[in-house]
């Protein structure tokens, strides 16, 4: 069988992409002695001790729990706030609507670091430091504009006549929104939720600034593993693998929405 050049290029590229992930997995299944001792393409001395450590030690696994709590909180808040806002932008013309819409987007142009200081000061004053809601609210600054932007694109694709037909049929606004409108833009909600989830999951700077112990996310836990006894390479690699899993799961569940969402809306 002849092998096509395009297939070779593709294989090389995929191997290149997968290499760091494989290496992380490789390390997570080795002992520290093997990692630091030399070079091996696969674990000679296969061990699950690293994963066992993480899943049994609260100071490790609470990192995941904390991260998931504020990420889910943030996604729910962002979508809940963005839905009515996007509806207004897609359906009504009002003074300065286009400027406001653009201004929303410009929020995303600033690096999160810019807002670390004001958020820290503000949340200290409000006694919100080291709570899940603090991180969730801080991430809203970036996620609400994004969600509004994405949802507006999807809503614009729904003819206004559907709304009017629903009023004429006697639907009240909340009922129309929940029963007719939201199912029509389910793809958009999926896409928007995906982007909110991913941003909040990977964002490190704000979540580190705003938490200390109780709401400390996994990313922060991972950066603070250098102890008196040196670096625990294996456990760190295992933590990395476990951090990839929620993202992979979310992508798996919304993959159909995302594909259609990219085709239909604005992402």
């Amino acid at each position, binding site marked *: 069988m002849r092998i096509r050049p395009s297939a070779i290029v593709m294989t090389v590229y995929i191997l290149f992409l997968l290499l760091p992930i494989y290496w992380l997995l490789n390390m997570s299944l080795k002992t520290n002695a093997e990692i630091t001792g030399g070079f091996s393409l696969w674990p000679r001395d296969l061990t699950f001790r690293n994963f066992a450590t993480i899943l049994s030690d609260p100071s490790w696994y609470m990192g995941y729990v904390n991260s998931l709590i504020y990420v889910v909180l943030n996604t729910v808040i962002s979508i809940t706030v963005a839905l009515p806002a996007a509806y207004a932008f897609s359906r009504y013309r009002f003074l300065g609507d286009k400027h406001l819409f653009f201004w929303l987007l410009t929020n995303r142009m600033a690096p999160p670091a810019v807002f670390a200081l004001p958020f820290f000061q503000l949340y200290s004053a409000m006694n919100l430091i080291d709570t899940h809601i603090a991180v969730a609210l801080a991430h809203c600054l970036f996620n609400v504009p994004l969600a509004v932007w994405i949802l507006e694109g999807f809503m614009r694709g729904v003819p206004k*006549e*559907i709304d*009017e*037909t629903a009023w004429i*049929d*006697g639907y009240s606004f909340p009922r129309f929104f929940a029963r007719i409108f939201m199912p029509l833009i389910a793809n958009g909600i999926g896409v928007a939720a995906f982007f909110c989830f991913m941003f909040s999951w990977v964002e490190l700077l704000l979540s580190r600034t705003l938490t200390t112990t109780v709401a400390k996310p996994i990313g922060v836990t991972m950066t603070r593993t250098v102890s008196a006894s040196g670096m625990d390479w294996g456990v760190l690699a295992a933590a990395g693998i476990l951090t990839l899993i929620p993202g992979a799961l979310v992508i798996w569940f919304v993959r159909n929405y995302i594909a259609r969402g990219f085709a239909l809306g604005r992402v």
Partner: protein
Amino acid sequence: MVLELKGVGKSVAGRPHIHPTDLRLDGGTMNVLLGPTLSGKTTLMRLMAGLDQPTTGRVFQNGEDVTGRRVQDRGVAMVYQQFINYPGMTVYENIASPLRILRRPREEIDRRVRETAEMLRLTPMLERKPLELSGGQQQRCALARALVKGAGLVLLDEPLANLDYKLREELRMEIPKIFEASGAIFVYATTEPEEALLLGGNTATLWQGRVTQFGPTAQVYRQPKDATTARVFSDPPMNFVPIFREGNRICFGATANAPAEGALAALPEGRYIAGFRANHLRINRHSGAAVEFDAKVLVTEITGSETFIHVGHGEDRWIGLVGGIHNLEAGAPLSVWLDPAHVYVFGPDGELVVPAGYALAPQEKVA
């Protein structure tokens, strides 16, 4: 139900979309809004429905002022030009949705949905989703949803415009039957004069946001109040030629003239504009009184058994509709004939001075 518009007008950003309009639509009547695109049919309909609020005037239902009342509480139904259904629901659920909002008992909903579906021949499609249906079926589903709740006012905004010829014919036959069964006020917007004539009832002609005439359809067609109404209610468009009366003769342009007889006998001396419909322009001497014009063929359009002949006569362009197939060469000279009894005479401002003689002939009353 009786729907009354009193001085209802709508301006957007200072530009009038609908000039103040008085209109009274009685219960159980079919009312056609006839006008070209952008003449204000849809805007007027949205004002009737309550989807838009008028800038001036009041809307009354059964004598009660409903201006500013929510659409939900108005008891109206509407069908759009686009096929608007709820894509996520089955046809059954689509039709049932207005009744579910009204919290009708389950058995009643089921009975009425099935009756309406039967009337619109949707019974085999009840369990399907609207987007799986053909265009005609989708529009019938929208019609069924509009009719099922028994609204007193049913607004149809060019419901057949997006359908192909065959389906359009089919639904056009059905709509009058549905209307008779419902007993509601029907308002039907269309750009096609032919559709207005087929539906009968009353017709309001619209031109640039103004209702130029409202009355029984046949009367509006035969006795248009002014040149604008005649132009709107004529397809192909009405032909015009300047005329003047001198003594006992009516002169058509520079070349032709005819004795002032019949309806034209009473015409005072002066200059006028004469209007006549395409089917009254002939290419043979069809009556003794016909006036002959020397014209030039511009285009011929053959549509099956009839031919539209576009001719130029001096500055004017006319369209004649003649039976049979005539393949005339563009640019060739052609004699055309016009019977003065088929001519509407309009004054310089477009107002009707003398209606065409044939239109005054006795005709059956249109209810």
